Protein backbone atom coordinates (compact mmCIF):
# COMPACT_ATOMS: atom_id res chain seq x y z
CA UNK A 1 0.00 0.00 0.00
CA UNK A 2 1.45 3.34 -0.99
CA UNK A 3 0.35 6.78 0.03
CA UNK A 4 -2.22 8.81 -1.80
CA UNK A 5 -1.30 12.13 -3.33
CA UNK A 6 -3.46 14.96 -2.00
CA UNK A 7 -3.80 18.19 -3.91
CA UNK A 8 -5.87 20.96 -2.37
CA UNK A 9 -6.26 23.55 -5.08
CA UNK A 10 -7.52 27.07 -4.38
CA UNK A 11 -10.10 25.98 -1.82
CA UNK A 12 -12.38 28.53 -0.20
CA UNK A 13 -14.73 27.43 2.58
CA UNK A 14 -17.61 29.47 3.87
CA UNK A 15 -20.14 29.27 6.67
CA UNK A 16 -22.97 31.60 5.71
CA UNK A 17 -21.37 34.93 4.85
CA UNK A 18 -18.28 34.11 6.92
CA UNK A 19 -15.13 32.91 5.18
CA UNK A 20 -13.44 30.12 7.12
CA UNK A 21 -10.66 29.40 4.64
CA UNK A 22 -9.72 31.48 1.62
CA UNK A 23 -7.99 30.29 -1.51
CA UNK A 24 -5.84 27.66 0.18
CA UNK A 25 -3.63 25.35 -1.84
CA UNK A 26 -1.71 22.47 -0.35
CA UNK A 27 0.04 19.40 -1.68
CA UNK A 28 0.92 16.19 0.11
CA UNK A 29 2.99 13.76 -1.91
CA UNK A 30 2.77 10.02 -1.46
CA UNK A 31 3.98 8.97 1.99
CA UNK A 32 4.65 12.48 3.29
CA UNK A 33 3.63 13.59 6.77
CA UNK A 34 2.26 17.10 6.39
CA UNK A 35 1.62 19.25 9.45
CA UNK A 36 -1.00 21.95 9.60
CA UNK A 37 -0.27 24.53 12.27
CA UNK A 38 -1.71 27.89 13.20
CA UNK A 39 -3.57 29.66 15.98
CA UNK A 40 -7.09 28.73 17.11
CA UNK A 41 -9.70 29.72 14.56
CA UNK A 42 -7.17 29.91 11.72
CA UNK A 43 -9.13 27.41 9.66
CA UNK A 44 -7.17 24.18 10.29
CA UNK A 45 -10.20 22.09 11.24
CA UNK A 46 -12.30 23.54 8.43
CA UNK A 47 -9.68 22.68 5.86
CA UNK A 48 -9.44 19.12 7.20
CA UNK A 49 -13.22 18.81 7.13
CA UNK A 50 -13.19 19.68 3.46
CA UNK A 51 -10.59 16.97 2.85
CA UNK A 52 -12.55 14.27 4.67
CA UNK A 53 -15.66 15.30 2.83
CA UNK A 54 -17.84 16.91 5.47
CA UNK A 55 -17.55 20.58 4.47
CA UNK A 56 -18.06 21.19 0.75
CA UNK A 57 -15.73 23.83 -0.72
CA UNK A 58 -17.42 26.94 -2.13
CA UNK A 59 -14.68 27.10 -4.76
CA UNK A 60 -11.60 25.03 -5.51
CA UNK A 61 -10.95 21.31 -5.57
CA UNK A 62 -9.75 18.55 -3.29
CA UNK A 63 -7.83 16.11 -5.47
CA UNK A 64 -7.20 12.62 -4.12
CA UNK A 65 -4.89 10.74 -6.49
CA UNK A 66 -6.12 12.99 -9.25
CA UNK A 67 -9.85 12.52 -8.59
CA UNK A 68 -12.07 15.18 -7.07
CA UNK A 69 -12.89 13.86 -3.58
CA UNK A 70 -16.33 15.42 -3.72
CA UNK A 71 -17.22 13.57 -6.93
CA UNK A 72 -16.73 10.18 -5.26
CA UNK A 73 -19.39 8.39 -3.21
CA UNK A 74 -18.64 8.62 0.53
CA UNK A 75 -17.99 4.88 0.71
CA UNK A 76 -15.45 4.86 -2.12
CA UNK A 77 -13.56 7.76 -0.58
CA UNK A 78 -13.62 6.11 2.85
CA UNK A 79 -11.56 3.20 1.48
CA UNK A 80 -8.79 5.68 0.67
CA UNK A 81 -9.17 8.44 3.24
CA UNK A 82 -9.65 7.90 6.97
CA UNK A 83 -9.95 10.61 9.57
CA UNK A 84 -9.70 11.19 13.28
CA UNK A 85 -12.12 14.01 14.00
CA UNK A 86 -12.64 16.12 17.10
CA UNK A 87 -16.34 15.49 17.58
CA UNK A 88 -17.15 12.90 20.22
CA UNK A 89 -19.57 10.05 19.69
CA UNK A 90 -22.78 9.13 21.44
CA UNK A 91 -23.30 7.24 24.65
CA UNK A 92 -24.08 3.72 23.56
CA UNK A 93 -22.23 0.89 25.17
CA UNK A 94 -19.76 -0.32 22.56
CA UNK A 95 -16.54 -2.07 23.47
CA UNK A 96 -13.23 -0.77 22.20
CA UNK A 97 -13.00 -3.71 19.80
CA UNK A 98 -16.41 -2.85 18.37
CA UNK A 99 -15.40 0.78 17.90
CA UNK A 100 -12.21 -0.20 16.08
CA UNK A 101 -14.18 -2.73 14.00
CA UNK A 102 -16.28 0.15 12.64
CA UNK A 103 -13.23 1.09 10.60
CA UNK A 104 -13.77 -2.01 8.48
CA UNK A 105 -17.23 -0.86 7.37
CA UNK A 106 -16.29 0.85 4.07
CA UNK A 107 -14.63 -2.39 2.97
CA UNK A 108 -17.75 -4.44 3.68
CA UNK A 109 -20.82 -5.14 1.66
CA UNK A 110 -24.08 -4.88 3.56
CA UNK A 111 -24.41 -8.44 4.78
CA UNK A 112 -20.72 -9.38 5.05
CA UNK A 113 -19.66 -10.75 8.41
CA UNK A 114 -16.36 -10.08 10.15
CA UNK A 115 -13.64 -12.36 8.78
CA UNK A 116 -10.48 -13.54 10.58
CA UNK A 117 -8.51 -11.03 8.45
CA UNK A 118 -10.72 -8.27 9.84
CA UNK A 119 -10.03 -9.49 13.36
CA UNK A 120 -6.26 -9.45 12.65
CA UNK A 121 -6.40 -5.94 11.21
CA UNK A 122 -8.41 -4.73 14.19
CA UNK A 123 -5.97 -6.29 16.67
CA UNK A 124 -2.90 -4.89 14.97
CA UNK A 125 -4.48 -1.43 14.64
CA UNK A 126 -5.12 -1.49 18.36
CA UNK A 127 -1.59 -2.74 19.05
CA UNK A 128 -0.17 0.13 16.99
CA UNK A 129 -1.60 2.63 19.48
CA UNK A 130 -0.57 0.58 22.52
CA UNK A 131 -4.22 -0.27 23.13
CA UNK A 132 -4.26 -4.06 23.23
CA UNK A 133 -5.22 -4.03 26.91
CA UNK A 134 -8.21 -1.83 26.20
CA UNK A 135 -9.85 -4.30 23.78
CA UNK A 136 -12.75 -5.38 25.96
CA UNK A 137 -13.35 -2.18 27.88
CA UNK A 138 -16.48 -0.12 27.15
CA UNK A 139 -15.49 2.87 25.04
CA UNK A 140 -17.72 5.17 27.12
CA UNK A 141 -15.63 4.62 30.21
CA UNK A 142 -12.17 5.33 28.79
CA UNK A 143 -10.16 8.40 29.70
CA UNK A 144 -9.74 11.14 27.10
CA UNK A 145 -6.30 9.93 26.08
CA UNK A 146 -7.38 6.30 25.79
CA UNK A 147 -10.31 7.32 23.62
CA UNK A 148 -8.09 9.29 21.31
CA UNK A 149 -5.81 6.29 20.83
CA UNK A 150 -8.77 4.04 20.10
CA UNK A 151 -10.10 6.48 17.50
CA UNK A 152 -6.71 6.48 15.82
CA UNK A 153 -6.79 2.68 15.83
CA UNK A 154 -10.22 2.83 14.19
CA UNK A 155 -8.81 5.03 11.44
CA UNK A 156 -5.88 2.62 10.99
CA UNK A 157 -8.29 -0.32 10.69
CA UNK A 158 -9.77 1.49 7.72
CA UNK A 159 -6.41 0.85 5.95
CA UNK A 160 -6.30 4.33 4.49
CA UNK A 161 -3.69 5.55 2.04
CA UNK A 162 -4.41 9.09 3.27
CA UNK A 163 -4.93 9.69 6.97
CA UNK A 164 -6.31 13.02 8.16
CA UNK A 165 -6.10 13.87 11.85
CA UNK A 166 -7.41 16.88 13.71
CA UNK A 167 -5.20 17.47 16.76
CA UNK A 168 -4.71 13.77 17.53
CA UNK A 169 -2.38 14.51 20.44
CA UNK A 170 -5.02 16.44 22.42
CA UNK A 171 -5.63 14.86 25.83
CA UNK A 172 -2.58 12.60 25.45
CA UNK A 173 0.27 12.52 27.91
CA UNK A 174 3.78 13.11 26.55
CA UNK A 175 4.64 9.44 26.12
CA UNK A 176 1.51 8.73 24.12
CA UNK A 177 1.93 11.90 22.08
CA UNK A 178 5.32 10.65 20.97
CA UNK A 179 4.01 7.14 20.38
CA UNK A 180 1.05 8.26 18.30
CA UNK A 181 3.11 10.58 16.14
CA UNK A 182 5.78 7.90 15.83
CA UNK A 183 3.10 5.51 14.60
CA UNK A 184 1.94 8.02 12.00
CA UNK A 185 5.54 8.51 10.93
CA UNK A 186 5.98 4.79 10.28
CA UNK A 187 2.85 4.45 8.10
CA UNK A 188 3.29 4.14 4.39
CA UNK A 189 0.14 6.25 4.03
CA UNK A 190 0.21 9.96 3.40
CA UNK A 191 -0.64 11.86 6.57
CA UNK A 192 -2.21 15.30 6.98
CA UNK A 193 -2.29 16.30 10.61
CA UNK A 194 -3.30 19.47 12.44
CA UNK A 195 -1.09 20.03 15.47
CA UNK A 196 -0.88 22.61 18.20
CA UNK A 197 2.58 21.77 19.45
CA UNK A 198 5.12 23.35 17.11
CA UNK A 199 8.04 21.31 18.44
CA UNK A 200 6.27 18.02 17.82
CA UNK A 201 5.19 19.28 14.40
CA UNK A 202 8.76 20.29 13.60
CA UNK A 203 10.16 16.93 14.62
CA UNK A 204 7.60 14.60 13.06
CA UNK A 205 6.45 16.37 9.88
CA UNK A 206 8.20 16.48 6.52
CA UNK A 207 6.64 19.80 5.69
CA UNK A 208 4.42 22.30 7.47
CA UNK A 209 1.68 24.60 6.30
CA UNK A 210 1.08 27.57 8.55
CA UNK A 211 -2.48 28.85 8.48
CA UNK A 212 -3.48 32.25 9.76
CA UNK A 213 -6.88 33.86 9.31
CA UNK A 214 -7.89 31.21 6.80
CA UNK A 215 -4.86 31.72 4.55
CA UNK A 216 -1.56 29.92 4.12
CA UNK A 217 1.09 32.21 5.56
CA UNK A 218 4.07 29.95 5.01
CA UNK A 219 4.86 26.42 3.89
CA UNK A 220 7.90 24.25 3.60
CA UNK A 221 10.26 22.08 5.66
CA UNK A 222 10.06 22.99 9.36
CA UNK A 223 13.66 24.21 9.52
CA UNK A 224 13.02 26.65 6.69
CA UNK A 225 9.85 28.25 7.90
CA UNK A 226 9.83 28.17 11.70
CA UNK A 227 11.48 31.50 12.41
CA UNK A 228 10.97 33.95 15.28
CA UNK A 229 9.68 36.43 12.73
CA UNK A 230 6.99 34.09 11.40
CA UNK A 231 5.91 33.09 14.90
CA UNK A 232 5.69 36.75 15.91
CA UNK A 233 3.58 37.47 12.86
CA UNK A 234 1.25 34.47 13.16
CA UNK A 235 0.95 33.90 16.90
CA UNK A 236 1.99 37.32 18.18
CA UNK A 237 4.61 35.83 20.52
CA UNK A 238 8.31 36.30 21.11
CA UNK A 239 10.37 33.17 20.58
CA UNK A 240 13.77 31.72 19.94
CA UNK A 241 14.35 28.94 17.42
CA UNK A 242 17.42 26.71 17.62
CA UNK A 243 18.34 23.46 15.96
CA UNK A 244 18.31 20.80 18.61
CA UNK A 245 21.71 19.05 18.70
CA UNK A 246 20.25 15.56 19.26
CA UNK A 247 17.16 15.58 17.02
CA UNK A 248 18.38 17.96 14.34
CA UNK A 249 14.89 19.47 14.29
CA UNK A 250 14.08 23.11 14.98
CA UNK A 251 13.29 23.71 18.62
CA UNK A 252 11.01 26.60 19.52
CA UNK A 253 11.31 28.25 22.91
CA UNK A 254 8.64 30.81 23.71
CA UNK A 255 9.78 33.79 25.68
CA UNK A 256 7.31 35.27 28.14
CA UNK A 257 6.28 38.75 27.15
CA UNK A 258 5.96 40.24 30.61
CA UNK A 259 9.35 42.01 30.99
CA UNK A 260 10.02 41.26 34.68
CA UNK A 261 9.78 37.52 34.06
CA UNK A 262 12.48 37.52 31.39
CA UNK A 263 15.11 38.49 33.95
CA UNK A 264 16.15 35.68 36.28
CA UNK A 265 14.25 35.77 39.54
CA UNK A 266 16.20 35.39 42.76
CA UNK A 267 15.50 32.04 44.35
CA UNK A 268 13.42 32.49 47.45
CA UNK A 269 14.97 30.26 50.13
CA UNK A 270 11.73 30.03 52.13
CA UNK A 271 9.77 28.41 49.28
CA UNK A 272 12.01 25.42 48.57
Amino acid at each position, binding site marked *: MTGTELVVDGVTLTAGAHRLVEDVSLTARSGEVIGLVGPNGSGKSSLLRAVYRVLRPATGQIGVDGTDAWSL*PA*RRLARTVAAVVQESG*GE*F*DLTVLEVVAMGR*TPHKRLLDGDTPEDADLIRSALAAVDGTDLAHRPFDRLS*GGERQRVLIARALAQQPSLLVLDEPTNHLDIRHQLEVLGTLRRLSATVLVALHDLNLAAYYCDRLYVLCDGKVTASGPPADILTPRLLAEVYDVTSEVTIHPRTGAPQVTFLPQTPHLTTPVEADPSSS
Partner: protein
Amino acid sequence: MTASAADTNAERAVRRRQQDDRQPGPATFAVTLTVLAALLVVSATAGLAIGSVQVPPGQVWGIVTHALGADWTTPNWSAARETIVLDVRAPRVLLGAVAGAGLAVVGTALQALIRNPLAEPYLLGVSSGASLGAVVVIVFGVTWFGPTSLSVAAFAGALGALLLVYATARTGGRITSARLILSGVAIAAMLTAVLDLLLLTTDRGNEARAVLAWTLGGLGGVNWDTLWLPSAALLLGIGILMVQARNLNLLLAGEEAATTMGLDVARFRARMFVLLSLVTGILVAATGPIGFVGLMLPHIVRLVVGGDHRRVLPTAALGGAVFLIWADIAARVVAAPMEIPVGVLTALCGGPFFLWLMRRDARRNTDRGGA
Protein backbone atom coordinates in the same frame (compact mmCIF):
# COMPACT_ATOMS: atom_id res chain seq x y z
CA MET B 1 2.76 4.88 51.58
CA THR B 2 5.70 4.07 49.29
CA ALA B 3 5.57 4.77 45.59
CA SER B 4 5.60 1.08 44.63
CA ALA B 5 2.75 0.27 46.99
CA ALA B 6 0.77 3.13 45.47
CA ASP B 7 1.52 1.74 42.02
CA THR B 8 0.29 -1.74 42.84
CA ASN B 9 -2.84 -0.27 44.34
CA ALA B 10 -3.43 1.76 41.24
CA GLU B 11 -2.74 -1.25 39.06
CA ARG B 12 -5.09 -3.35 41.07
CA ALA B 13 -7.78 -0.69 40.77
CA VAL B 14 -7.29 -0.60 37.01
CA ARG B 15 -7.46 -4.38 36.79
CA ARG B 16 -10.61 -4.47 38.90
CA ARG B 17 -12.18 -1.82 36.70
CA GLN B 18 -11.24 -3.79 33.61
CA GLN B 19 -12.91 -6.88 35.01
CA ASP B 20 -16.03 -4.95 35.98
CA ASP B 21 -16.10 -3.42 32.55
CA ARG B 22 -15.76 -6.67 30.68
CA GLN B 23 -18.59 -6.84 28.22
CA PRO B 24 -20.68 -9.75 27.06
CA GLY B 25 -19.36 -11.83 24.18
CA PRO B 26 -21.09 -13.82 21.43
CA ALA B 27 -21.92 -16.62 23.87
CA THR B 28 -24.04 -14.26 25.98
CA PHE B 29 -25.82 -13.18 22.83
CA ALA B 30 -26.70 -16.74 21.78
CA VAL B 31 -27.87 -17.61 25.29
CA THR B 32 -29.95 -14.43 25.51
CA LEU B 33 -31.64 -15.13 22.18
CA THR B 34 -32.40 -18.72 23.15
CA VAL B 35 -33.81 -17.74 26.52
CA LEU B 36 -35.95 -15.02 24.96
CA ALA B 37 -37.25 -17.36 22.26
CA ALA B 38 -38.26 -19.88 24.90
CA LEU B 39 -39.81 -17.09 26.93
CA LEU B 40 -41.76 -15.98 23.88
CA VAL B 41 -43.29 -19.44 23.51
CA VAL B 42 -44.20 -19.51 27.21
CA SER B 43 -45.62 -15.98 27.04
CA ALA B 44 -47.70 -16.73 23.97
CA THR B 45 -49.08 -19.84 25.69
CA ALA B 46 -49.94 -17.75 28.74
CA GLY B 47 -51.54 -15.13 26.54
CA LEU B 48 -53.78 -17.79 24.99
CA ALA B 49 -54.58 -19.46 28.31
CA ILE B 50 -55.25 -16.55 30.67
CA GLY B 51 -58.47 -14.53 30.64
CA SER B 52 -62.08 -14.59 31.77
CA VAL B 53 -62.21 -18.21 30.61
CA GLN B 54 -59.09 -20.02 31.83
CA VAL B 55 -57.80 -22.63 29.41
CA PRO B 56 -55.11 -25.02 30.72
CA PRO B 57 -51.79 -24.72 28.82
CA GLY B 58 -51.98 -28.35 27.67
CA GLN B 59 -55.35 -27.71 26.10
CA VAL B 60 -54.04 -24.47 24.52
CA TRP B 61 -51.36 -26.50 22.78
CA GLY B 62 -53.90 -29.14 21.82
CA ILE B 63 -56.09 -26.51 20.18
CA VAL B 64 -53.18 -24.77 18.44
CA THR B 65 -51.62 -27.97 17.10
CA HIS B 66 -55.04 -29.22 16.03
CA ALA B 67 -55.58 -26.01 14.08
CA LEU B 68 -52.17 -26.42 12.47
CA GLY B 69 -53.14 -29.99 11.49
CA ALA B 70 -50.60 -31.67 13.75
CA ASP B 71 -52.64 -33.15 16.59
CA TRP B 72 -50.73 -34.49 19.55
CA THR B 73 -53.82 -35.22 21.68
CA THR B 74 -57.35 -36.21 20.82
CA PRO B 75 -59.61 -33.15 20.83
CA ASN B 76 -61.53 -33.03 24.13
CA TRP B 77 -62.46 -29.35 24.32
CA SER B 78 -65.62 -27.43 23.54
CA ALA B 79 -66.07 -25.47 20.33
CA ALA B 80 -66.47 -22.31 22.40
CA ARG B 81 -63.00 -22.75 23.87
CA GLU B 82 -61.56 -23.32 20.45
CA THR B 83 -63.14 -20.08 19.28
CA ILE B 84 -61.81 -18.18 22.29
CA VAL B 85 -58.27 -19.43 21.83
CA LEU B 86 -58.06 -19.32 18.05
CA ASP B 87 -60.23 -16.41 17.01
CA VAL B 88 -60.26 -14.10 20.03
CA ARG B 89 -56.96 -14.56 21.78
CA ALA B 90 -54.55 -15.79 19.11
CA PRO B 91 -54.74 -12.70 16.86
CA ARG B 92 -54.46 -10.54 19.92
CA VAL B 93 -51.37 -12.31 21.23
CA LEU B 94 -49.80 -12.18 17.78
CA LEU B 95 -50.55 -8.47 17.44
CA GLY B 96 -49.03 -7.92 20.87
CA ALA B 97 -45.87 -9.75 19.81
CA VAL B 98 -45.71 -7.90 16.49
CA ALA B 99 -46.33 -4.47 18.02
CA GLY B 100 -43.92 -5.06 20.91
CA ALA B 101 -41.17 -6.23 18.56
CA GLY B 102 -41.86 -3.42 16.12
CA LEU B 103 -41.85 -0.65 18.70
CA ALA B 104 -38.65 -1.98 20.26
CA VAL B 105 -36.73 -2.02 16.96
CA VAL B 106 -38.11 1.38 15.96
CA GLY B 107 -36.96 2.80 19.30
CA THR B 108 -33.52 1.21 18.89
CA ALA B 109 -33.01 2.65 15.43
CA LEU B 110 -34.42 6.05 16.36
CA GLN B 111 -31.99 6.33 19.27
CA ALA B 112 -29.08 5.72 16.90
CA LEU B 113 -30.38 7.97 14.12
CA ILE B 114 -31.07 10.92 16.37
CA ARG B 115 -28.09 10.02 18.54
CA ASN B 116 -30.09 10.47 21.67
CA PRO B 117 -30.84 7.81 24.28
CA LEU B 118 -34.25 9.30 25.07
CA ALA B 119 -35.60 9.00 21.54
CA GLU B 120 -38.78 6.93 21.25
CA PRO B 121 -41.75 7.13 18.86
CA TYR B 122 -44.28 7.95 21.57
CA LEU B 123 -42.19 10.58 23.37
CA LEU B 124 -41.22 12.29 20.13
CA GLY B 125 -44.81 12.79 19.06
CA VAL B 126 -44.45 10.32 16.18
CA SER B 127 -47.25 8.18 17.59
CA SER B 128 -49.40 11.29 18.05
CA GLY B 129 -48.80 12.19 14.43
CA ALA B 130 -49.84 8.70 13.40
CA SER B 131 -52.96 8.89 15.59
CA LEU B 132 -53.96 12.21 14.11
CA GLY B 133 -53.51 10.86 10.60
CA ALA B 134 -55.69 7.87 11.44
CA VAL B 135 -58.37 9.99 13.13
CA VAL B 136 -58.57 12.38 10.19
CA VAL B 137 -59.33 9.37 8.00
CA ILE B 138 -62.00 8.10 10.39
CA VAL B 139 -63.70 11.43 11.03
CA PHE B 140 -63.77 12.57 7.42
CA GLY B 141 -64.43 9.09 6.11
CA VAL B 142 -61.52 9.17 3.66
CA THR B 143 -61.16 5.92 1.71
CA TRP B 144 -58.74 6.83 -1.10
CA PHE B 145 -56.57 3.82 -0.38
CA GLY B 146 -59.34 1.32 0.37
CA PRO B 147 -59.03 -0.65 3.61
CA THR B 148 -55.42 0.48 4.14
CA SER B 149 -56.39 4.17 4.16
CA LEU B 150 -56.04 4.25 7.93
CA SER B 151 -52.49 2.93 7.82
CA VAL B 152 -51.46 5.19 4.96
CA ALA B 153 -52.74 8.24 6.82
CA ALA B 154 -51.04 7.09 10.05
CA PHE B 155 -47.77 6.71 8.15
CA ALA B 156 -48.06 10.21 6.70
CA GLY B 157 -48.87 11.64 10.12
CA ALA B 158 -45.93 9.82 11.74
CA LEU B 159 -43.47 11.01 9.11
CA GLY B 160 -44.74 14.59 9.33
CA ALA B 161 -44.43 14.65 13.11
CA LEU B 162 -40.94 13.10 13.06
CA LEU B 163 -39.63 15.61 10.53
CA LEU B 164 -41.19 18.47 12.48
CA VAL B 165 -39.64 17.38 15.78
CA TYR B 166 -36.28 16.74 14.14
CA ALA B 167 -36.23 20.10 12.40
CA THR B 168 -37.22 22.09 15.48
CA ALA B 169 -34.89 20.24 17.88
CA ARG B 170 -31.79 20.44 15.73
CA THR B 171 -29.52 23.44 16.06
CA GLY B 172 -25.99 23.66 14.74
CA GLY B 173 -26.00 20.01 13.69
CA ARG B 174 -26.66 18.83 17.23
CA ILE B 175 -29.72 17.72 19.14
CA THR B 176 -29.63 18.03 22.89
CA SER B 177 -31.84 15.79 25.00
CA ALA B 178 -33.63 18.74 26.52
CA ARG B 179 -34.50 20.29 23.19
CA LEU B 180 -35.55 16.96 21.71
CA ILE B 181 -37.90 16.08 24.53
CA LEU B 182 -39.32 19.61 24.71
CA SER B 183 -40.12 19.81 21.03
CA GLY B 184 -41.46 16.24 21.15
CA VAL B 185 -43.76 17.13 24.03
CA ALA B 186 -44.88 20.39 22.43
CA ILE B 187 -45.60 18.81 19.06
CA ALA B 188 -47.33 15.81 20.65
CA ALA B 189 -49.49 18.23 22.66
CA MET B 190 -50.42 20.20 19.56
CA LEU B 191 -51.24 17.10 17.55
CA THR B 192 -53.28 15.62 20.38
CA ALA B 193 -55.18 18.90 20.76
CA VAL B 194 -56.08 18.88 17.08
CA LEU B 195 -57.10 15.24 17.43
CA ASP B 196 -59.34 15.96 20.43
CA LEU B 197 -60.87 18.92 18.64
CA LEU B 198 -61.72 16.72 15.68
CA LEU B 199 -63.27 14.06 17.88
CA LEU B 200 -65.30 16.48 20.00
CA THR B 201 -66.75 18.36 17.05
CA THR B 202 -67.50 15.40 14.81
CA ASP B 203 -71.10 14.35 14.25
CA ARG B 204 -70.24 10.70 14.52
CA GLY B 205 -70.61 10.45 18.28
CA ASN B 206 -70.33 6.69 18.67
CA GLU B 207 -67.34 6.42 16.43
CA ALA B 208 -65.65 9.21 18.31
CA ARG B 209 -66.00 7.31 21.56
CA ALA B 210 -64.47 4.21 19.99
CA VAL B 211 -61.63 6.25 18.60
CA LEU B 212 -61.01 7.90 21.94
CA ALA B 213 -60.60 4.46 23.51
CA TRP B 214 -58.26 3.52 20.67
CA THR B 215 -56.02 6.55 21.33
CA LEU B 216 -55.17 5.07 24.74
CA GLY B 217 -53.49 2.16 23.01
CA GLY B 218 -54.87 -1.36 23.14
CA LEU B 219 -54.73 -4.71 21.43
CA GLY B 220 -58.44 -5.57 21.58
CA GLY B 221 -60.65 -5.79 18.55
CA VAL B 222 -58.01 -7.30 16.27
CA ASN B 223 -58.90 -10.21 14.01
CA TRP B 224 -57.10 -12.43 11.55
CA ASP B 225 -58.05 -10.22 8.58
CA THR B 226 -56.27 -7.14 9.92
CA LEU B 227 -53.17 -8.85 11.27
CA TRP B 228 -51.26 -9.24 8.02
CA LEU B 229 -50.39 -5.57 7.55
CA PRO B 230 -48.66 -4.99 10.92
CA SER B 231 -46.85 -8.32 10.52
CA ALA B 232 -45.62 -7.41 7.06
CA ALA B 233 -44.50 -3.98 8.33
CA LEU B 234 -42.57 -5.61 11.16
CA LEU B 235 -40.80 -8.10 8.88
CA LEU B 236 -39.92 -5.37 6.41
CA GLY B 237 -38.67 -3.11 9.19
CA ILE B 238 -36.52 -5.70 10.92
CA GLY B 239 -35.18 -6.99 7.60
CA ILE B 240 -34.03 -3.59 6.39
CA LEU B 241 -32.69 -2.51 9.78
CA MET B 242 -30.66 -5.72 10.11
CA VAL B 243 -29.16 -5.12 6.68
CA GLN B 244 -28.31 -1.56 7.77
CA ALA B 245 -27.04 -2.57 11.22
CA ARG B 246 -23.41 -1.69 10.41
CA ASN B 247 -24.44 1.75 9.28
CA LEU B 248 -26.49 2.27 12.43
CA ASN B 249 -23.34 1.39 14.36
CA LEU B 250 -21.39 4.03 12.47
CA LEU B 251 -23.81 6.71 13.64
CA LEU B 252 -22.87 5.89 17.22
CA ALA B 253 -19.45 7.34 16.41
CA GLY B 254 -20.95 10.71 15.50
CA GLU B 255 -22.11 12.18 12.22
CA GLU B 256 -18.75 13.43 10.96
CA ALA B 257 -16.99 10.24 11.92
CA ALA B 258 -19.72 8.21 10.21
CA THR B 259 -19.18 10.25 7.05
CA THR B 260 -15.44 9.57 7.14
CA MET B 261 -16.24 5.86 7.34
CA GLY B 262 -18.29 6.05 4.19
CA LEU B 263 -21.86 6.74 5.28
CA ASP B 264 -23.87 9.40 3.47
CA VAL B 265 -25.52 10.47 6.71
CA ALA B 266 -28.21 12.82 5.39
CA ARG B 267 -29.49 10.36 2.81
CA PHE B 268 -29.30 7.40 5.17
CA ARG B 269 -31.20 9.24 7.88
CA ALA B 270 -33.90 10.39 5.44
CA ARG B 271 -34.47 6.83 4.24
CA MET B 272 -34.54 5.43 7.74
CA PHE B 273 -36.99 8.12 8.88
CA VAL B 274 -39.37 7.03 6.13
CA LEU B 275 -39.00 3.38 7.09
CA LEU B 276 -39.47 4.00 10.81
CA SER B 277 -42.50 6.21 10.17
CA LEU B 278 -43.99 3.50 7.99
CA VAL B 279 -43.60 0.84 10.66
CA THR B 280 -44.78 3.16 13.44
CA GLY B 281 -47.73 4.39 11.38
CA ILE B 282 -48.95 0.89 10.58
CA LEU B 283 -48.49 -0.30 14.16
CA VAL B 284 -50.30 2.72 15.58
CA ALA B 285 -53.13 2.26 13.10
CA ALA B 286 -53.52 -1.28 14.44
CA THR B 287 -53.05 -0.75 18.18
CA GLY B 288 -53.24 2.95 18.93
CA PRO B 289 -50.22 4.66 20.41
CA ILE B 290 -48.42 2.45 22.94
CA GLY B 291 -45.69 4.31 24.72
CA PHE B 292 -42.31 3.56 26.28
CA VAL B 293 -41.80 0.06 24.81
CA GLY B 294 -39.42 1.63 22.30
CA LEU B 295 -37.62 3.40 25.11
CA MET B 296 -37.24 0.65 27.68
CA LEU B 297 -36.38 -2.38 25.59
CA PRO B 298 -33.35 -1.04 23.71
CA HIS B 299 -31.71 0.15 26.91
CA ILE B 300 -32.33 -3.05 28.84
CA VAL B 301 -31.10 -5.08 25.87
CA ARG B 302 -27.89 -3.01 25.53
CA LEU B 303 -27.08 -3.75 29.16
CA VAL B 304 -27.13 -7.46 28.34
CA VAL B 305 -25.71 -7.82 24.82
CA GLY B 306 -23.78 -4.54 24.35
CA GLY B 307 -24.37 -1.80 21.79
CA ASP B 308 -23.71 -3.48 18.42
CA HIS B 309 -26.94 -3.22 16.41
CA ARG B 310 -26.42 -6.63 14.87
CA ARG B 311 -27.09 -7.97 18.36
CA VAL B 312 -29.36 -5.27 19.79
CA LEU B 313 -32.00 -5.39 17.04
CA PRO B 314 -32.96 -9.08 17.17
CA THR B 315 -32.73 -9.16 20.96
CA ALA B 316 -34.86 -6.04 21.34
CA ALA B 317 -37.44 -7.49 18.94
CA LEU B 318 -37.82 -10.69 20.94
CA GLY B 319 -37.79 -8.82 24.23
CA GLY B 320 -40.39 -6.33 23.01
CA ALA B 321 -42.67 -9.15 21.89
CA VAL B 322 -42.44 -10.89 25.27
CA PHE B 323 -42.92 -7.63 27.14
CA LEU B 324 -46.03 -6.52 25.30
CA ILE B 325 -47.68 -9.96 25.48
CA TRP B 326 -47.34 -9.84 29.28
CA ALA B 327 -48.42 -6.21 29.44
CA ASP B 328 -51.56 -7.20 27.56
CA ILE B 329 -52.20 -10.17 29.85
CA ALA B 330 -51.94 -7.78 32.79
CA ALA B 331 -54.27 -5.33 31.02
CA ARG B 332 -56.90 -8.07 30.77
CA VAL B 333 -56.45 -9.41 34.29
CA VAL B 334 -55.71 -6.63 36.81
CA ALA B 335 -59.17 -5.05 36.78
CA ALA B 336 -61.18 -7.97 35.32
CA PRO B 337 -63.82 -8.04 34.01
CA MET B 338 -62.91 -4.53 32.94
CA GLU B 339 -60.06 -4.27 30.48
CA ILE B 340 -57.39 -1.59 30.85
CA PRO B 341 -55.81 -0.13 27.71
CA VAL B 342 -52.33 -1.66 27.48
CA GLY B 343 -50.86 1.78 26.74
CA VAL B 344 -51.84 2.85 30.24
CA LEU B 345 -49.82 -0.01 31.72
CA THR B 346 -46.73 0.53 29.56
CA ALA B 347 -46.74 4.19 30.54
CA LEU B 348 -46.99 3.12 34.16
CA CYS B 349 -43.71 1.15 33.88
CA GLY B 350 -42.14 3.41 31.28
CA GLY B 351 -42.49 6.73 33.07
CA PRO B 352 -40.29 5.78 36.02
CA PHE B 353 -37.85 4.10 33.64
CA PHE B 354 -37.59 7.32 31.65
CA LEU B 355 -36.85 9.29 34.82
CA TRP B 356 -34.19 6.80 35.86
CA LEU B 357 -32.57 6.99 32.42
CA MET B 358 -32.57 10.77 32.51
CA ARG B 359 -30.89 10.79 35.92
CA ARG B 360 -28.33 8.21 34.80
CA ASP B 361 -27.38 10.26 31.74
CA ALA B 362 -27.07 13.39 33.84
CA ARG B 363 -24.76 11.50 36.23
CA ARG B 364 -22.65 10.17 33.38
CA ASN B 365 -22.22 13.62 31.93
CA THR B 366 -21.17 15.03 35.29
CA ASP B 367 -18.69 12.20 35.72
CA ARG B 368 -17.19 12.86 32.35
CA GLY B 369 -17.06 16.61 32.91
CA GLY B 370 -15.16 16.02 36.13
CA ALA B 371 -12.69 13.54 34.63
